[in-house]
């Protein structure tokens, strides 16, 4: 599948070995103006996908070669977090449950209720968007953290762990005033408006 458009434009990746199924899904999903990219096997998908593309994955569980579940596992192992919607046939419920346990965000049973499907896709795309934002934020924060001096970093760790300035000064063997200065520097470098915000940032960075 050709990969046109930029990575930021959300794309619905359809992986199904049944051509009619792929075509019909493309037809349906394109009707709401979403970009669709179809693949007839998991391998084909892996060949063209690169992490960072926004979108969601519509995955048929039963396929010759690498099955849907195997692809899901592969993505997880390689920390590629793209939201996965599992397409199942009638009677494949146990398999769908396994997929859900492995982190699929939804499963849709054939034949599809179009509303449900499109909702699920929208939902997945939203999740993906959030994930992407979070990832972007984390990268930003990590960059900011990188500007901290080791002392400042130490101070930030302690502050966000809920220690008071006095405790920190005692532990580091510096004056409270120095700690205060470091703390101000940290708040400044991290662009945190409040202590609470700084705590949230440090949590994000730590995730």
């Amino acid at each position: 599948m050709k990969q046109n458009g930029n990575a930021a434009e959300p794309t619905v990746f359809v992986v199904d070995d049944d051509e009619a199924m792929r075509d019909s899904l493309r037809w349906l999903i394109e009707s709401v103006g979403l970009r669709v990219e179809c693949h007839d096997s998991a391998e084909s998908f892996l060949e063209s996908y690169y992490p960072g593309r926004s979108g969601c994955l519509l995955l048929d569980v039963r396929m010759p070669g690498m099955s849907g579940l195997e692809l899901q596992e592969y993505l997880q192992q390689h920390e590629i977090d793209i939201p996965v919607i599992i397409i199942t046939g009638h009677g494949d419920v146990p398999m769908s449950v396994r997929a859900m346990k492995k982190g699929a965000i939804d499963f849709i049973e054939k034949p599809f209720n179009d509303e449900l499907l499109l909702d699920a896709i929208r939902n997945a795309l939203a999740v993906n968007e959030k994930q992407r934002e979070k990832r972007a934020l984390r990268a930003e924060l990590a960059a900011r953290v990188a500007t901290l001096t080791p002392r400042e970093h130490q101070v930030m760790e302690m502050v966000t762990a809920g220690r008071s300035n006095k405790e920190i000064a005692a532990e580091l063997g510096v004056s409270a005033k120095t700690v205060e200065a470091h703390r101000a520097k940290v708040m400044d470098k991290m662009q945190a408006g409040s202590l609470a915000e700084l705590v949230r940032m440090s949590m994000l960075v730590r995730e």
Partner: protein
Amino acid sequence: MREPQRPLFKQLLRRVPMPVLAALFGLLTAAAVWIVIDPIQTRAIGNIFRQELQAQLETRARESLLRFDSFVQSYVNTVRLLANHRRMADYLEPLVWFSGDDEPPRVYRDQRPLWAPVNAIDDLPVKPDYAILADTDGRMREIYQITRRPLPKEARLEIAHAIADAPHQAYLTRMDDQLYLLLAEKVEDASYYHMGSLVLLVPVDSRFLDASQQRAPDSAITVALVDVDSQKILVASGNDPLLRGALLDSARDSYVTTVQSFFDYGNTPLNLLFATLMPRHLVDATRSRIIAVERRHRLTGAAIVGLIFVLLFVLVSNRINRLLKRVADFSSRALHIEQPAPRGGNRLLIMEDWIRSFTQAVMRAREEMRAQYTAEIEEREALKTAVLDASLDPIVTIDQHGRIVDFNPTAVQTFGYGQEEALNQPLDKLIFDQGSRESFNSLLADSMKLDDESVQPVLRTLTARSKDGRILPVEVAIKPVWLENEPLFTTYIRDISERQRQAREIVSLAAFPSESPMPVLRINRPGVVIYANRASDALLDYWGCQRMQTVPIFWKRVVEEVLSTGRSRELEVTTSEGILSLLLAPVSDLDYVNVYGRDVTAMRRAEEEARHRQNELIHVSRLSTMGEMATGIAHELNQPLSAIVNFANGCVRRLRLGIGKKEELIAAMEQIADQARRAGEIIKRLRGMVARKQPVREEVDLNNLVRDACALISHDQHKLGVAVESRLNGQPVMVRVDPVQIEQVILNLLRNALDALSGCEPDGRRLVVTTGVTHDGQAYIEVRDNGVGIAPDELKHLFDPFFTTKKSGMGMGLSISQTIVTEHNGKISARSVPGRGAVFTVELPLNETAVESKVS
């Protein structure tokens, strides 16, 4: 024997062989006949020739006269032409002749007058001497002299007469001792005014006659004009000077003459005859030539006939001679009579002598034979007595009063009476009881009526009684013997008690088939039921025939076939009372067929029932297979249905929003239709497998069945990640099968293989289906997997019912597959290397219409 002295002639005759004699005789006879017949015949031919000649001559004479007549007519026409010619009219009109004047006629010599046209006169075959113009009174006015001959003196008078008599004239007349043809014609002008007459004088001489006969080229015939009164020839054609002036009678000496009268020239002053003459020497020469030719032919014919007869004589007598020779040779060899004559010569006469000597020999032989005969008679008498004594049957000879004259030893033994006891006793009283006595006596009376020559003695069955009172059934035959006018009767008495017992036994044996509760029949070669027991009635009803009637044509053929092949045949028929199995056994030497029936209704019903059950089982098994496959098939069905829903929803959305191009929408809807069709196909296939149908036989391509079966398990393949490799035969493999059942078998095998594969590593799973034709002409399907394989002890029970290695399943699949394949006259087999896979092979007969199973 001494030969008597014969006359010399007869001796000579004996020496000449018969064919030579016959030839001589024939030739002499022919010569004699010729001598008698030849003069008579010659005379007869001469007469016929004369008569024929006379008739010929008369015809010739008539023709000559006609020619003469038409020749004269040509002159008449010429004079008419001249008279009516324009020059004539032009010349005469201004000219005036006065009737009273004495002016001499104007004569033209060596100069043509103006009134004569250029060629009219010159072209005539014989030119006239004169052309004369006369006035109305008959006076000559102008004379055109054409030849040098002087004008006869009588001419003036003759012309005057002629013109006075009639306006047109043509007749023969005699002037100055010369015959003339006088032609006179009236000349008239345009208003029929009589201006004068034109007269031509033509000399009738031999030139004239020649010219008149010009068209007949044979100069042999002469014509002549004869004066009746003087019988003189006045003028004759040709140039025989003897004829002119000769008497007709004198001409007859050297000519054959025919005379006709001249009626047509009636107003001639002459009395003339027209004679036709033929030279006599010519006639005689012709006659003798004809006679000679005829005699030559006659002689040839007679010679041929004579020769044929002589040849026939010779052949026949030669044949007779040979025959006689053979008879003589044979008799001399057979009877040892020496031939009385030399080997050559006239056999007939030799034979005569010989027969005489033969007769004497025969007389001698008769004497010898009589002596021999007497001796033989004595011998035969002795023999007869011995035969009588040795006979196995009692033989009693009685005289005409019925008294016993001879009682042979067997009679003594049978009836218990001694010779002395029996002799002179009346036979009827001695051994017959009251009832038989009368019959015997009437038999005796009957036999007396028979003459000596009758071969068949009268035979009758009677009851006799022996001395000790035993009752014996006997056959009695009486043969009268005439001995010097006193009749004796040889009575043959045969004890038939043993035979009667045997007959009774045979009758009771024959009753066997009639008592049989099953049909027993006998049919001969032409197909006639010659025996049928009571139990055969239903079969006869089925055939629609009675006893002693002919069976239907099909059965007649069967009977003929069984008789000609000599092999028995079994056939089944369904009668009103059930199904009969008929065994037709040939009895070839007697040319009929025995038919033994057997009621197989119950058997057939049981078979039918079993078959029905089996079909039921096959169907149930199929249903169960389908049940097991339901999930997969449902999934399979789900695919197109889901696609349809997606396409449809996509369309609805676009339409609602007013987006989407028309072509796109159409393409999507076409996809919907395609997918609906796909779903329909799946359902159809499913329905085919689930439907309960009567077993059928159809001609199908095995490849198609494999394809269908593969389609049904596509979901399972999918699930296991196995792609079935189809290695189908390039050509269609045509078989005559129940397609649903065979597909069931293939499906079973494929599913088993898939099951076997589910137990091993996903990567290396292989399932290969092959179709083809074996080297011995069987269609086959092979299903090969590389799954877990089958253990050897399991392999043995593979096709047993309820044998299974699976956790689910009844273990009926292979068992039923085997049933189906066997039912199709095929076979199913399995081989396996445990751990490395298994191969199942189904072989089926290639399509042959002859393969008929009992199902139909």
